[in-house]
């Protein structure tokens, strides 16, 4: 009659133990892990989000810190100690000015179409530039714009956030000021304006401004 199952079989491990688990997984992982991914690997009933908070404060100010990268979490060395890791530095290809500017425009204006990038820079975007940024895994295709021709848009990736040490695209330097100055608005040229953009007034979110609309 009283066949109560062993309660320890079903109770989640203590929080200290969950913290250890999250610590071990993030430590071993080559790429950021989301709360969902952590939860999937842990026993039922665990709360990785809470464990992460404990862990984050434990690592605050240490040589290795817990950082948020988009919807993932990762362990990274403290930036002020970078000089110790000379031998681990990866030599990165020097990016062209076109590539750097295109990347910045995508980051600050995302989701953004190729035509919009060209409008901002005043020159055509070469295919090689987009390919290179894709190859670096810093940009990817976003959803299509609901305008005639349904052009593809570009957005930045989690790897971009990881590379530049950003928690989210909202943390881009100077984003709020740029927005306040109206420099992230999509402003068509008077009269002759870009044909495509005039059709854009169907309420499609325009660039990063949507990040602030909530």
């Amino acid at each position, binding site marked *: 009659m009283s066949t109560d199952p062993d309660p320890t079989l079903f109770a989640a491990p203590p929080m200290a133990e969950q913290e250890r688990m999250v610590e071990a997984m993030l430590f071993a992982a080559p790429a950021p892990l989301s709360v969902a991914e952590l939860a999937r690997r842990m026993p039922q009933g665990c709360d990785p989000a809470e464990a992460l908070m404990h862990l984050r404060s434990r690592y605050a100010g240490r040589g290795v810190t817990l950082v948020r990268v988009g919807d993932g979490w990762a362990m990274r060395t403290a930036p002020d100690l*970078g000089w110790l890791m000379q031998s681990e530095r990866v030599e990165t290809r020097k990016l062209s000015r076109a590539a750097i500017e295109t990347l910045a425009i995508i980051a*600050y204006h995302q989701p953004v179409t190729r035509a919009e990038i060209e409008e901002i820079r*005043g020159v055509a975007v070469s295919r090689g530039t987009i390919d290179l940024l894709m190859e670096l895994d810093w940009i990817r295709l976003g959803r299509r714009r609901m305008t005639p021709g349904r052009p593809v848009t570009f957005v930045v990736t989690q790897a971009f956030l990881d590379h530049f040490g*950003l928690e989210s695209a909202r943390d881009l330097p100077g984003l709020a000021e740029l927005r306040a100055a109206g420099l992230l608005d999509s402003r068509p*040229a008077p009269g002759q304006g870009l044909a495509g953009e005039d059709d854009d007034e169907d309420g499609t979110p325009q660039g990063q401004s949507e990040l602030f609309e909530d």
Partner: protein
Amino acid sequence: MGTDATQEQGLEAPGAAEALIVDVDGFEGPLDLLLTLSRTQKVDLRRISVLQLAEQYLGFVERARKLRIELAADYLVMAAWLAFLKSRLLLPPDPAEEGPSGEEMAAHLAFQLERLAAMRDAAARLMARDRLGQDFFARGAPEAVGETRRTRYDATLLELMQAYARLRTRDDFRPYAFERHDILAIEAALERLTAILGEVPDWTALQRFLPEGWRGSPGRRRSAVASTFAATLELAKQGRVELRQSEVFAPIHLRRKPHS
């Protein structure tokens, strides 16, 4: 050094412009050139004189023409547009004229320049950030603890349907053959006998081994008898059954061979 500087000062305006022309390949298009020219006004981009800028640009294009330097088409398109803008800005507005006013056009150009400058600045700030692999680092030796390799087989619904379609339509092209509804194959009889052999330790009439559904109609029955008999011969040859027939045309009996 000092004398060089003095000499350059005297030639500053044309010298700088010619340096720009020679370096025209270094510009990322006309907007970039305009931005560079606008810096010479040494004012905030918001208070730039677009008229003056247009004149600077047109002067640049003019000098390039004199120096027989070929400019790309988009530089010339920009020059034409700026000439148009200049005329709009200088002439009193004509109410009959359609399209945007010179001021609107100038304001938009100023906005474009300011936006491009802002993006340049943002790009520089982005690249100046601490960067992964340069200033902060991921785990140097991601652990391969207990990595299990698992093969996942994949197939789509389309592939499944196509496979089935392929099978079903193949029948269309199969060489013509009699449908074998009333023929019991020897293989089938053999398989059946083998399966039930264990249950017949004693002598049993061959007729009893005919499958359900094969005892009624004479045609099916004949086929079943023949196949089953052939199958018993095969099994006898393998030493697995013993056969017995008391006289010619008498019923045939079989049993499992002891110790087989």
